[in-house]
């Protein structure tokens, strides 16, 4: 065991900027060398002293600074949402296994905060000259995050941006899996990445597997330690904080009987999703 590692102990960082990402999400920028070396899909444990510590995906990974994007739910995310430039947060990680860059033409399907890790993923894929179709879904236009960034990012020959909203206020009206299905009929997609509400991921995974296309999904479970000790994040026989959060087709088939159906609460009790 290495002594005094800086990875499993919070590093105090100053919030460099706060941006509204949509009507319901904010992006917080901070500087941290370890996080700058992260891969898309990896997550950090973010500590708000005196409140809580919880997992967040990196929504931007650059050499000078990185960011996370959060939607307020309960105590932890609510207090982060209220924080301002100059305030201090603790950061440990990055943890877990991120997305593996594969395929010639990838479809990235994101919903809600699940879009966060797909932005650096799209950047990484494009930088390797792979084709990217970014399919972003939200209930309504005002809740669609990363719109400006995604538009700029997809403004290349190799990129295409498709938006879907439940109410049709922008882009295609309807649900993301349906839009993906028709996309797969039109374009030769050989790799699918998905992150979002789990029922959506379940559909996208089923669709991809049925069509024989490889798929990677980034799952969420309660994470307390993030280093494979506490067991709060188990899915099937996988320890999500270490084996995931990104699972590949093979692993997703293994956890099929839980995906989109079952989770564990903070006590470890099984509950339906």
């Amino acid at each position, binding site marked *: *065991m*290495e*002594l*005094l*590692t800086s*990875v*499993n*102990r*919070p590093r*105090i960082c100053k919030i460099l900027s706060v941006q509204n990402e949509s009507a319901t999400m904010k992006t917080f920028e901070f500087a941290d060398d370890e996080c700058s070396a992260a891969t898309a899909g990896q997550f950090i*444990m973010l*500590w708000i*002293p*005196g*409140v*809580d*510590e*919880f997992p967040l995906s990196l929504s931007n990974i650059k050499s000078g600074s990185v960011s996370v994007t959060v939607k307020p739910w309960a105590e932890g995310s609510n207090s982060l949402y209220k924080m301002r430039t100059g305030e*201090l947060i*603790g950061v440990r990680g990055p943890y877990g296994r991120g997305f593996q860059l594969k395929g010639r033409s990838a479809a990235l399907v994101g919903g809600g905060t699940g879009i966060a890790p797909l932005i650096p993923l799209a950047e990484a894929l494009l930088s390797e000259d792979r084709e990217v179709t970014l399919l972003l879904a939200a209930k309504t236009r005002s809740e669609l995050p990363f719109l400006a960034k995604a538009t700029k990012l997809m403004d290349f020959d190799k990129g295409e941006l498709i938006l879907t909203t439940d109410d049709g206020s922008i882009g295609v009206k309807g649900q993301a899996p349906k839009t993906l299905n028709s996309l797969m009929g039109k374009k030769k997609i050989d790799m699918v990445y998905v992150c979002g509400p789990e029922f959506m991921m379940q559909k996208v995974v089923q669709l991809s597997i049925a069509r024989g296309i490889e798929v990677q999904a980034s799952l969420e479970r309660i994470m*307390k*330690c993030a*280093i*494979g*000790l*506490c*067991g*709060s994040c*188990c899915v*099937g*026989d996988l*320890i999500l904080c270490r084996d995931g959060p990104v699972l590949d087709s093979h692993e997703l088939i293994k956890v099929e009987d839980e995906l989109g159906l079952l989770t*564990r*609460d*903070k*006590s*470890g*009790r*099984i509950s339906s999703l």
Partner: protein
Amino acid sequence: MVDISVAISSLKLENPTLLASGILGISPKTFMRIKKSGAGGIVTKSIGLEPNDGYSAPTLVEVEGGYLNAMGLPNPGCEAFSEELREADWLDMPIIVSVFGSSPEELAKIVDSFEDTPCQAYELNLSCPHVSNVGVEVGSDPRSVYELTSAIKQKSKKPLFVKVTPMVPDVIEIAKAAEEAGADGITAVNTMKGMVIDLKIGRPILHNRVGGLSGPALKPVAIRCVYELYKSLNIPIIGCGGVTTWEDAIEFFMVGATAVQVGTAIASRDLILFQEIVDGIIKYLEEKGHDDLKGIIGIAHKR
């Protein structure tokens, strides 16, 4: 061929390594994976009467030579967890259910719920350093230890191991109380209280402020406890605290342990470390010309 199987009371283990309580220990499917990684068996998370979310995070932080944790005994409660075990009837491996409680009545109820599950033995956790009423306070008082141990022994015929805290002046007195009450083995030890401060914000990192120290830093304390207990007890001892390599396991056997538990080391080494420890023990025994573990258990006591 070296035989490293061990029997602790009626509990039979293919090899003397167990997963320590509170580490993973919540999902039956992971139990099987841990077994396949080489463990002789697993101890579950400590289970109480009611579901408990545990403390707010941070619940775990790395320190010099190990970790401090203040999980706060999160667990699904005996009803939900026993149900999950009952449904996992395919579980074909030694499962030790760890239990905690503040009264004999409470423990009797908890144990009762596991009697018809794949649970093969119990471990009584009287030694959690960061939860009041069920941890070290009761575990430091020989009379409470006697009462709580008896309560379980009256309820169940399955072997019972009592897990002790190193944070008492006389660990022998506590273990003897458990032995007199019918315990079939002693697990030594649980974590020790510690604290760590972040300099930039000037406050403890753990939400609970205080947590339990585990990992290599705890090992010399655990080795000393097992050494003291071996001389005074007639029941087997399961060593626990800082086991990371096969050499650590051998050290525990030499002071008198019959088996060892592995916890924190999983964070830095992955589950495969069980197989590495097992292979190392076999190789060591072969080289020294022993047929089984009996040849080395307790040899450090010779003068």
